[in-house]
């Protein structure tokens, strides 16, 4: 059964930036039709992971399969064809700032299909309706709040009815209301459109609320993975600290430094 195969399958991924090792042997399977959350502290390369899945960055070693295609081996043309079936929601929304909301959502449709204008209009209005912003179609991106910009970007990511959507920190910097809207939208879109969703986030509560499965990565490795309930009650001290937001634990509160007394006494 092809449906049992994960949509995205990452094996033994290694990637570094300059001297810094970002991923050191990461294996992740993202099941079809589910919401998978990838969590970890800031700076663990979660965004990098999405860029690797999308083929924007190439890994040093390891393989990435998306829907049976080996992403890092694809040529430009095939990669672009694959990307048309993937949507990505950037943290900033990444809307094109010089065209209004309507044109932003219409952009991928105009680029990749030869649909007539009347049909494009209907499609765009439907996508905007799904994120509740049909009335905002004539606004320019700078007139939108952060949450609205993300919802427009979500409508744009869905414009070509992709098989999966990747969310890069969708909850960061949102007020409670727009956070709630986004949480609801991600889950609803996933179930209504039979999407596969990958949510990269460090907002534990929100991510755990909508995720079917959670991976936690830190220091270049997958620390633990499992269903949200299991993760919340994990036996691992590290996972416990992360999921419950404790100030001290395996991840120390203090940045490594010599002893305080020694430091204070040795100064001029």
């Amino acid at each position: 059964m092809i449906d049992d195969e994960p949509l995205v399958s990452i094996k033994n991924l290694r990637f570094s930036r300059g001297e810094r090792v970002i991923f050191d042997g990461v294996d992740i399977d993202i099941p079809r039709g589910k919401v998978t959350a990838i969590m970890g502290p800031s700076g663990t390369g979660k965004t990098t992971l999405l860029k690797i899945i999308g083929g924007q960055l190439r890994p040093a070693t390891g393989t990435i399969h998306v829907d049976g295609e080996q992403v890092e081996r694809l040529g430009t043309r095939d990669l672009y064809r694959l990307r048309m079936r993937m949507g990505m929601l950037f943290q900033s929304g990444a809307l094109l700032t010089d065209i209004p909301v309507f044109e932003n959502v219409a952009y991928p449709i105009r680029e990749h299909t030869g649909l007539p204008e009347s049909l494009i209009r209907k499609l765009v209005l439907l996508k905007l309706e799904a994120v509740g912003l049909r009335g905002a179609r004539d606004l320019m991106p700078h007139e939108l709040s952060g949450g609205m910009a993300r919802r427009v970007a979500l409508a744009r990511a869905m414009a070509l009815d992709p098989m999966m959507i990747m969310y890069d920190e969708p909850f960061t910097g949102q007020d409670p209301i727009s956070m709630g809207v986004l949480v609801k939208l991600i889950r609803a879109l996933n179930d209504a459109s039979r999407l596969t969703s990958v949510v990269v986030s460090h907002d534990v509560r929100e991510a755990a609320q909508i995720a079917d499965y959670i991976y936690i990565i830190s220091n270049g490795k997958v620390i633990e993975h499992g269903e949200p309930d299991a993760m919340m009650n994990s036996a691992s001290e590290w996972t416990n600290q992360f999921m419950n937001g404790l100030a001290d634990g395996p991840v120390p509160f203090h940045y490594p430094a010599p002893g305080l007394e020694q430091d204070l006494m040795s100064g001029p």
Partner: protein
Amino acid sequence: MDHEANAFRELPVLEQLARLGRIGLGILEQMGRGHLLLWQILAGISELFTRPRLLLNQLFSVGVLSILIVAISGTFVGMVLGLQGFYILSQFGAEQTLGVMVAASLVRELGPVVTALLFAGRAGSALTAEIGLMKATEQLSGLEMMAVNPIKRILTPRFFAGFMAMPLLAAMFSALGVLGGYFVGVGLLGVDDGAFWSQMQTKIDLNEDVLNGVIKSLVFGFVCSWIALFQGYGAVPTSEGVSRATTRTVVHSSFAVLGLDFILTALMFGE
């Protein structure tokens, strides 16, 4: 720690050599990147035929929006040339040749060079800032993830717009400069009207002067647009990175224009 620092101090020559090597490698790497980007930009030329609208929009923002500064500067440079030229030429009783002097200096040198410097400051910096900010706000990544090639879609039209706008702007600069020189020389200082134009007509050669000036401004347009786009595309995607890149665009473009002008002049007008 002290130990290490001492070890370095003992070998300053080696350390300096290593630093020199790093700088050299860095420059080579930058040049390599620049050429690769240029190649990718040029490879996107087909985009201009399938979507001419992209080029027209950029011609407007790169070219038309630079007209005002180029026109005003051209007029004033011409007026100053008229004044200075008149004072010097009249010492030799040669003020009738003012038209030739004004036109030759504008068409051969000042038109292409000053226009290119103004272009780097007005349009080049704007291009760098725009591309850099598009990068910082993930718009370029966003395009890529929408399966749209940002180099073809964003950089190529801007490059060709700059390349095409520069000679037109330089021509405008020179034309208005000649009028400025005419206004000062003939209108204010009393040089003979007929002599001003007829001397200019006989002495300014279409190939030797005008065409060479156009070639210069084509070269400058190519280089200035290339530098601006390269700096923008390679900018560190932070506010500081974009501001640095914008500065570098103006500085590098100015150096490139002045250096290339010397080389081109030597090639064109040398014996």
